[in-house]
Each structure stands twice: as structure tokens, then as C-alpha cells.
């Protein structure tokens, strides 16, 4: 990701951190978070982008015109559900046996 224009004096390589967690990603049909990205267009605070600790949400912070969401890296914390002010989010835990696996915790 070379095109990113991140804010802040510190840049955490979150994808490297995520690489240390075990994942068993479910197929798209069973994605545990569904985002109605049509509702994101005129959101100016983009709190999901800033809150998400797994960089699942990317939007104007990286110069995109449209919300780009991917559930695959999700660490199942639930922050985005609380952060979204537009009712664009449908949140549930992944199906049994899918999602993250911590080995330390």
C-alpha cells in the first residue's frame, strides 16, 4: 500500500500485526459484517475508519472516493458497530469455527 496518505506522526504496520493472528476466513456469502456502503457517501467523520483496529475500512483517509470494506482481517471487536452513525452496518459474530484464533489472548 504505497498510495496511503496517513495522518499522524506514527504509522503502525497493522497488516503485519494482523499477520500474526490465525484466521479461518468464511466465504463472502457468510460475511459476518455487512456494510451498506451507499450510506457512507456523505459521512464526514468516518469513525469506523479511525476506530477499526484492523484497517478493515478504507475511505478518504487513503484517498478513495468510495468506502472500501473488507471483513477478512476483522478481529471481531465490534468497534465499528458502535462507531457508525449512519446505520450502515450489520454486525454479527462469524459462524462457529470461522474468524480469528488467538494463541496468546
Amino acid at each position, binding site marked *: 500500500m504505497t498510495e496511503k496518505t*496517513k*495522518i*499522524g*506522526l*506514527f*504509522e*503502525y504496520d*497493522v497488516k*503485519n*500485526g*494482523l499477520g*500474526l*493472528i*490465525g484466521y479461518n476466513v468464511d466465504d463472502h456469502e457468510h460475511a459476518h459484517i455487512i456494510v451498506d456502503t451507499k450510506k457512507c457517501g456523505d459521512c*464526514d*467523520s*468516518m*469513525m469506523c*475508519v*479511525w*476506530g*477499526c*483496529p*484492523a*484497517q478493515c475500512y478504507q475511505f478518504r483517509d487513503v484517498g478513495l472516493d468510495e468506502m472500501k470494506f473488507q471483513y477478512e482481517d476483522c*478481529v*471481531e*471487536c*465490534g*468497534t465499528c*458497530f*458502535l*462507531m*457508525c*452513525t*449512519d*446505520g*450502515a*452496518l*450489520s*454486525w*454479527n*459474530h*462469524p*459462524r*462457529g*469455527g470461522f*474468524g*480469528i*484464533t*488467538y*494463541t*496468546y*489472548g
Partner: protein
Amino acid sequence: MGEEADFDVIIIGCGMAGMACAAQLLKEGVEGDRILVVDRGEPVGAKNMSGGILWGRELDELDDIFPNWEMDNPGIERYINNKKIGFLSSDDAFIMEGKFASWDGIGGTVEPSMRTGWSVLRARTDAWFAEKLEEAGVFIMPGIKIDQLNIEGLDHTSYTARDLTDPAEDSGRGKAQKWKISNFDPEIVDAVRNGKIRGIVQDGEVMTSNVVVIAEGSNSVLTRSYAFDSMLHAQDRHGIILGVKEVIHLGEEEINSRFGCYSGDEERPPSGMAMEAALAIFDDMAEKAWEEYPVTAGLVPRAGGWLYTNKDTLSIGVVIQLDSLPSGIHTYDMLAAYKAHPAIAPLIRGGETVEYGAHLVPEYGLDRMPTRLVRDGAVVIGDAAGLVYSNGAVIQGQNYSIHSGKLAAKVIANCIESGDFSEKALKQYKKDLDASYVMRDLRRFKTTAKFLADDANYTWVPKFMGTMFNRVVREIGEEKITVEKQVLKLRKQMRRKDRKTKKGMGLLNLIRLGLMGRKL
């Protein structure tokens, strides 16, 4: 009552609360094969995370099911005999440290000698608890997520799990969420909200039980779905904290020498250190963010940091009050800033990050805690019930979870005996919880939630403490003045610097802060 239920009790979630509830049920004489524990993780513990220090000897009472837990549980890492509380600003760090002989359970002459805190790695502790429960005859089903609760007289196919938590089409923006389910047939809605719960639905299959114990943890979908007055609502992030954490491998020897810890012996695990700090280190990040995203300009990120020693790893992370996060700052960048702070960086230097993760902490405080913990045939325990207390110096939750699990189990055991699983009978759990030290703590320290949400503790207070200590103990050839004069001088200087501090350090504000602070 109609036909016999598949189980007496189904416990959803095998964390601290769930496992304690199951263990206590066994102790009360409930047969293991009448208890089912389901957990999303496979193996059990795979989804679980804490900071994490387990405070309190709650597990002692359960040691017939978890024998020698302190030494044998592979997730109990070090006992804590060294506690630090810090104030970190961009320039300075002021860290208070206590090292207590009595905390290692052998030493000490005046205070009761007792080990009361352990660094834990929950993926491991919880797997062991599950294993022991299974050995004691409890049914454990890992890798199972519960979508719906079984409600008497309601066909579970008439609605889906998503209907309960999805916002309705006509839901207003920025207002309290209106759920999709509210547009359903009123009879269904009423049953979902007030019906008699009798078991669970998993993958379309119903498993019945007399009581369902919801021990889902901080991010509980079932409590918000089934009207347990959960505060975890969309668009509402007050009182919720996000913890972002790394586990860093350093090696046992290195940790012992770097943090002055002892190696363990036959009776004790190795000793360890627990540090928590108030952080005022995000000024530059915040200012840049405010400029770029004026929509949240002026919002000060309120965050704390922690560092705990495990056997051969460190747990390090930041907790961020989500309602204070401004646009423009990624939560994980705050972790990076904390790790790079001059007081922290040398402590983790040379370590290799072996895990990254994040978890919500339901630090609602008494005013915003869920009030409906009991329904016909169901109770809520642990994090799902919002049982977390912090005053900055102390942060507890796992011991409260265990305690609530035990209390619920005792009441449920009585209900099994009497055959009455109504809300009225189960309400005894709520009464017991109210009378226990858990709720007494939360009530006594009611003001702390307000205190911890005060910007001052994340802006000028850490700066003031750091600079103050710096000036009092240094010698740079200047004339010495008394501490009192130093305090007044620094206050004057800091107030002159910017308007925000001026207001924050005004006399009224200091008194207000002092009044709250003395109740910690």
C-alpha cells in the same frame, strides 16, 4: 412444566464468567451432563483476550474443579508483586512504583501475605479451564456460535439473528437506532423482548434448557438482540473502551533481569510487574488530525497505556475511550505512539511481536450499566453485564466475572431444585449481585467513571506531574524553591501557554477535579 429440557443449564461463552458458572454449578451438585457450555472459539479460548491481569483469589473457591490452578494452568504467567502507575506526557514520564513483599504470599510482616494478581494469557487459561470442566463431566462444545435464543411459543424461523441487530430502513441518522425487528408483527416483537427463554437455536436446530446463561463477553450480540438493556447499541459509544494489544516475546531471563523479577519455585509462579499509565502523548497527532478533519476538532483522545510481564512475553497496549476518538487518528497508531514513548521503548526493545489483537472493555460505570440482567429463563453475567470497574489505579473485570458466574450458579441450582425458572425466581441473582462486593464497589466509586472521562487526566495532569517532578528533583544550577512555589509557578506557566489549559487549570476546575479525585 412440559417435557424435560435437553439440559438444565446452557452457558453461552466459556470465558471467566462462563467457566466459573459451570464450575460452581458442579459444586452445587448439578450433574455435569445437565450442563452444556458452548463457545465460539475452537479450541475454547481462541476468541478470548484480556489486558491482562487477573486480580483476586476468586478461583480458590473452585479449586476442587480447577486443582492447583495457580501452578498448573498454562495461561497463569506471573504473580504480580510490583505495581506501577504512571503519567506520561510527550516529554516526561512520572511513574510511581510499589514493590510489595506481602504480595508474593510468603514475605511481609504487617500486611496480609497473599498473592492476589496474576498476568494471564486468556487463550491458554480458558482452554485449560474448559479441559478441567470437561474432565468433571460438563459438556463443552467449542466452535459454536449461537444466533438465536429459543423462545417458548415463538417459531425461530419467523425472524433471523440479523433482524434483531440490523438498523431499520427508516432509522434516523445519528439518532438512537431503530431496529429492523421493530417493523415486524407486534406479537413477534413482544415475544422476542419479553417471552420465556428456553434454550438456544444453533444453525436452525433447537436445544432446550431450563436456564440460559449469557456469558458472551463484552461484545455481546445476544444481550442487545434480546432486550437485556445492553448499552452496546449502534451509534452509542459512551462508556465503551477499546483495548489494542500486542504480545511481545522477550524471553524469560531477559524479562527477569529487565524488570527485576524473580524466577518461580515449586510453590509460586515467577514474579511480575504490572504498569498502567495515563497518556497525554497524542498532542501532535491530535492537532494534525483536527486540522485535517475539522468535524471533530478539539476532541482530545482519552487513553491509557499498560505493560504487563508474562513468563517470556510482555503484554502491551492502549485503552481508548471510544467517544473521545477524533477523526484522523487510527487506534493502532496510538499503540505505535505509546510503544515509541521514551519511557516505554527501552522496556520492549529487542522484543519480537508475536500477537496483535483488540477487544472492547465495557467500562460503563454504574449509570449506564445494563439493568435488566434477568429474564424468564435467562441470566446475564460477566462482561456481558458490564461488570468492569476502573479508577485509573485499579482495573478489574475478570474477578467480577468469576464472582457473578458463581452467584448466578448458586441461584440457578436453587431454581433447579424448586423447578421454578421464572424471572421472579432468577431475580435472586440480581439481588445477590447487588449485595456483593462487585456492585458495592461500583456503587461506592460511582464518580470515578466521570473522573476518568475528564479531559484533564489526559492533557495537563500527566504533563503537570512530569514537569513538576522534573523540576523538583533536578539540579541545573538554578536557585531552589519550595515545592509549593514550584507548583504555583508551573500552574501559572502552563495556564499562560494555551487557552485550553488556562480553563482546565482554573480554580473551580481544580476543586471539581479534586472533589472527584478524592473519591477514587
